[in-house]
């Protein structure tokens, strides 16, 4: 069954350039049209923020608050494929506590609010996935992994807290000795290994999807694409790719512990933890060579777009009729040739609610997509 009526209504208050705005949204493809600077991307950003509790453009909350206001509010009605409905509300501002509520009941933890619907954004900055620093790919992996696995964020937070604590202790060697760092290392290793297991699993299923979807983009002479998990542990102790899942968790714990041990002297000198999941990467290759160094601009863009498209298709499988999927598309087709644009529209999943920002409706929209046009003005 096709379910694409995820967000029927969206309300913004003091968000970016919107003082007060209300949108009635349609199933299928919603086109947000308007001149540059009218606030099309801001609507996409608000939807994304509600799903993921962060922006795809900024880490500064004050960037999101309208000029002259102290806080912004985003409110939306959300429907699930089983037709159960929820009202999500979020209010935040610089220097004040974030308020989130589900059906008017306040929610304490972000992890209980996040991913009420699964959301992926296609933005021009996605090219950084292909040629940017590894932090971009880790963020991509973390969001996708948390959408696929509800327990992932807990392990990630515990790991990050333990890592920050270890680094803080390394900066004060006169106060914290091996015994103190040791107890935090045990926690770092346990949750770090869980994070690595999940990231590896995410990459495995994503790889399969990408390899299936890639030919549609490349026509007759497809370059060989490859993606692999590159774990942040020292090479000598790295578990093999073919390792069984059951034994792998223990292997990652050992590898992580040994990586800490092998670099202890260096870590103590540099006062920073050298190895660990904070160094994980999603390695991308084209025709056997690293993409960032050997891929053309077009190849990088195409690969990044594929990562987004394939992960969107993964989300639909993962949601399996429990949660709706929303795709936000902002200005990513301009750089592609006609054949690749056609491939994009062909692969775009029909079971998701789609939001597409553009100055004018594109000519190549497939006939099977129900289109609703929303002229956007500030």
């Amino acid at each position, binding site marked *: 069954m096709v379910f694409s009526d995820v967000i029927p209504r969206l309300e913004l208050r003091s968000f970016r350039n919107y003082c007060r705005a209300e949108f009635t949204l349609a199933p299928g493809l919603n086109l947000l049209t308007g001149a540059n600077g009218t606030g099309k991307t801001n609507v996409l950003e608000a939807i994304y923020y509600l799903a993921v509790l962060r922006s795809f453009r900024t880490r500064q909350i004050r960037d999101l608050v309208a000029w002259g206001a102290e806080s912004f509010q985003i409110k939306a009605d959300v429907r699930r494929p089983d037709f159960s409905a929820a009202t999500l509300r979020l209010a935040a501002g610089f220097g004040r506590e974030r308020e989130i509520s589900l059906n008017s009941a306040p929610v304490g*933890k972000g*992890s*209980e609010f996040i991913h009420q619907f699964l959301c992926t954004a296609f933005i021009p900055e996605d090219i950084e996935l292909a040629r940017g620093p590894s932090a971009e790919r880790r963020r991509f992996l973390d969001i996708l992994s948390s959408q696929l696995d*509800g*327990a992932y964020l*807990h392990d990630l937070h*515990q790991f990050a*807290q*333990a890592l*920050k*604590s*270890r680094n*803080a*202790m390394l900066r*004060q060697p006169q*106060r*914290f000795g091996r*015994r*103190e760092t040791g*107890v*935090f290392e*045990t*926690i770092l290793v346990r949750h770090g290994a869980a994070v690595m297991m999940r990231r590896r699993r995410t990459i495995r299923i994503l790889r399969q999807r990408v390899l299936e979807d890639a030919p549609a983009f490349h026509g007759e002479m497809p370059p060989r694409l490859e993606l692999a998990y590159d774990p942040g542990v020292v090479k000598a102790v790295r578990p093999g790719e073919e390792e069984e899942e059951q034994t792998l968790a223990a292997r990652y714990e050992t590898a992580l512990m040994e990586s800490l041990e092998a670099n202890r002297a260096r870590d103590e000198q540099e006062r920073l933890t050298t190895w660990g999941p904070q160094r994980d990467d999603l390695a991308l290759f084209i025709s056997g060579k690293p993409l960032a160094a050997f891929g053309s601009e077009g190849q990088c863009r195409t690969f990044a777009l594929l990562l987004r498209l394939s992960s969107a298709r993964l989300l639909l499988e993962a949601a399996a009729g429990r949660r709706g999927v929303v795709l936000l598309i902002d200005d990513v087709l301009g750089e592609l040739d006609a054949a690749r644009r056609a491939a994009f529209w062909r692969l775009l999943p029909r079971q998701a609610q789609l939001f597409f920002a553009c100055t004018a409706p594109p000519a190549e929209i497939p006939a099977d997509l129900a289109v609703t046009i929303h002229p956007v003005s500030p």
Partner: protein
Amino acid sequence: MASNYPPVLEELIVGLRRLPGVGARTAERLALSFTGWPADDLRNFGALLAAIPERLRFCTGCGNFAEAETCPICADPHRQRDVICIVEQAIQIPAIEKTGCYRGLYHVLGGRLEPLADKGPETLRLAELRTRLAAGGVREIILAVSSDVEGEATAAWLAHEFRAAGLSVSRLAAGLPVGADLGYADAATLAAALNSRRRLE
């Protein structure tokens, strides 16, 4: 901001704002409510506040709030003296006491290992604890610390020392709240409950 109140109220409002969770509006409301109290009640209330530095002390043994050298729990001859329950703060003792199922003694750590908040082992009441253990007679330690990263690390750090001293060490279980519906538990809580599951006897 120009004040609309006479100085006595104004100073009271400033004082009340130092209390946790009290903002400008609440402080104003609280201060104004005092104006309706009989003079004697106000005097008694003030005397109570003034007596805090003289009367309130900390138990020399466990670190609990006390009005004498030792707190009522340490002074109680009916308490089991071979079990010590370690808590982070004194305010956690009444919570455990309310359960009515613990009859041993306590020890207040006064914090926990929290490198990100600049709290090292030297900020904990460990010398006092070691003195108590050295005096002998303690056989079991219960670690009642929170179940976040710092709590877990502090528990592991303490357990290492106590086990070496031949004591039996346990931690409070983490998992499902009593009476909770499984369907509403978050993934992390359920995982903790699974990991510390118990065999049915």
